[in-house]
């Protein structure tokens, strides 16, 4: 099986869908000839033609409105928003239109669109190339949100998202494009080459939305994470010495509540990890759900390890980024009550 980094895996997913379904279209700012600023769509225009993969005007609202209209017609557009930070001009389109269309039209119309967007920090992108806005979407009824953590998952989840009849936000942790990153920023860069998660089949396969992965089994505590933080969690767990179970949510809506609940009921302790700022973040919902469903099994308070409640600060990347040391501390803290 070929080894692919996450960019190649995503590219392969798009290539597979462009080849097998003429309803698939791929577009966005700079995605056509150039292949996208992160090269995810590289070669697709040359291979599938300018009408299948093309550049759009610099207008996120227009891109998503166009995608919705195409979806209503019967196509399956895959739109790229160049950075997740720039998805907000399209927020009304996503929330008031894509997410509500099926419901309000009594099931007559729907928008089977996929919105891909590079996401998250760790690349010194400063305030507007680093944000993690997933909580804003998780609260919106009617859209699904997917965040992969490996090349294998990225391809399988993206194909599933494209084939989904509901609108899907697909956030790609840009710090994982070229290799896993565990938050140890002072160590040598790693690539995906040779890692089992980078063994990606050439053809069509799917990973169903709403199924979490148990990345590491453990007995003493549960760590909930997604995207880049899955790798940070591995490092943090190792550092802590705690026998923690690590769950990669893979999609935050739908959430695999059963896997989450079963794990915390087993371990009795829970730490939630995300890059986004803490207050009102997705971790709050996870904390509330776990508390509601596992209250009597909880041996210590659920901990959240998150970005601080500040904008993403360029020079302070590693002061802001919730790294393995902070997770390890949180794990030791939840273990205090044993």
């Amino acid at each position, binding site marked *: 099986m070929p080894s692919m980094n996450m960019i190649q895996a995503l590219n392969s997913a798009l290539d597979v869908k462009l080849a097998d379904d003429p309803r698939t279209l791929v577009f966005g700012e700079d995605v056509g000839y150039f292949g996208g600023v992160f090269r995810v769509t590289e070669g697709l225009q040359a291979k599938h033609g300018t009408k299948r993969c093309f550049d*759009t005007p610099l207008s996120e*609202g*227009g891109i998503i409105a166009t995608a*919705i209209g*195409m979806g*209503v017609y019967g196509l399956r557009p895959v739109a790229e928003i160049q950075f997740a930070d720039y998805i907000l001009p399209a927020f009304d389109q996503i929330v008031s239109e894509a997410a509500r269309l099926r419901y309000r039209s009594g099931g007559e119309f729907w928008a089977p669109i996929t919105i891909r967007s590079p996401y998250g920090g760790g690349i010194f992108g400063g305030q507007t190339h680093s944000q993690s806005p997933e909580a804003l979407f998780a609260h919106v009824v009617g859209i699904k949100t997917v965040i992969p953590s490996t090349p294998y998952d990225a391809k399988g989840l993206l194909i599933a998202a494209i084939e989904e009849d509901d609108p899907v936000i697909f956030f790609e942790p840009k710090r994982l494009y070229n290799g896993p990153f565990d938050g140890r920023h002072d160590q040598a860069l790693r690539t995906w080459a040779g890692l089992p998660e980078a063994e990606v089949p050439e053809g069509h396969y799917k990973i169903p939305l709403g199924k979490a992965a148990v990345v590491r089994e453990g007995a003493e505590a549960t760590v909930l994470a997604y995207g880049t933080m899955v790798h940070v969690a591995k490092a943090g767990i190792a550092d802590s010495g705690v026998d923690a179970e690590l769950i990669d949510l893979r999609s935050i*809506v*739908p959430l695999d509540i059963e896997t989450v609940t079963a794990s915390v009921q087993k371990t009795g302790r829970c730490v939630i990890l995300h890059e986004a700022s803490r207050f009102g973040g997705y971790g709050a919902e996870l904390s509330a759900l776990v508390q509601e469903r596992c209250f009597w099994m909880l041996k210590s308070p659920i901990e959240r390890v998150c970005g601080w409640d500040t904008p993403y600060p360029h020079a302070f990347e590693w002061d802001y980024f919730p790294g393995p040391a902070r997770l390890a501390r949180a794990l030791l803290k939840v273990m205090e009550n044993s």
Partner: protein
Amino acid sequence: MKKPPLSLYIPQPPARPGDKARFDHLSFDLGAAARMPDWRTPETELRDLPYGLVRVLGVEGSAWDPHLAPEVMRKGLRAMVQTRLFEDRFFRAHRQGKVSFFMKSTGEEAIGVAQSMALEPSDMCFPTYRVQGWLLARGYPLEKMINQLYSNERDPLHGRQLPVLYSARDYGFYSLSGNLGSRFGHAVGWAMASAYSGDTRIALGYVGEGTTAEGAFHEALTFASVYRAPVILAVTNNQWAISTFAGVAGAERTTFAAKALAYGIPGLRVDGNDFLAIWSATCWAASRARANLGPTLIEFVTYRVAGHSTSDDPTRYRPKDEGEHWPLGDPVERLKDHLIAAGHWTAERQEQMEAELFDELREAQKAAEMVGSFGKSKPPVSEMFNDVFKDPDWRVTEQRRELGI
């Protein structure tokens, strides 16, 4: 050099309650017949059009006359009258507590009706709430329409939407929503998809003149122009956006049709109370779209005779009699008079038709009331939980259970 102080300009409508109604700020010359260029003409040679006014009714020998067969005009008249009667009836139904909310298009009926008829059944309209006539012209079942208004058990939208916010796929009528402007770009995307698919269907999108100020308006036009989408983009300039006069949307400076010039596409300014002018302009734009010549922006100049909705009282912000001074007349009267003058219609036949339509409406309302008017009947509560996604997820399933349904 000492500079004079700046001052902030705030637009004011020509008349407020108590003032004499005035429309002399509208820059059109009713006598002048607009030229009708061949629809294949490149945009660079059409840049004067947005400043004229396309008219047929009342203009001797207008180049834009579509020369419609009398029965087509009679059908249009019928749908317009039906629209007016329908709206009057359900406006009253609101006062009787039978609907929770309602909106009328009085004075603007020609637009939805003529466009509905002039376009192909398979073309797709992305409407505003002000074109109920589209559905009536296409024979949408009255009772079903009323069930939607009543949010009753047979409401095709399952009680999920405010009255008037219809959705009618089989009638080429896209799902409405309260949000203004955000579906204009869907018309463009749909049209691009049709073009991509080698289909022959074109799209029509509507916004009110007030809504042209939304960013979504500009984005839709930009995409339409860049990809030459086969779409007609219509601005119904009815002079008011709730209490705000069109000047606050930019009408003090230029026409809405002139917004086409920003995108290098043709812009037509059309008498929106002239059934024949609307028809003709629609066909002209449709010909361009069907020939891969791209989008056309059409401004329909009209007047919102009624209040904005059942929640509005227009006498609070404009002269009570403003509508009577509207220079473009009433679309129903104008078409009727034209048909009568041409010997294709009579006052008696009009009366008879109105009576028929009245009875039909009354019957349909009765039938819908048998199901139940607002609050007397509603779809099963489980419909509250359906269609959030194609398949329900555990949240909705659990919450249904919590509610015991």
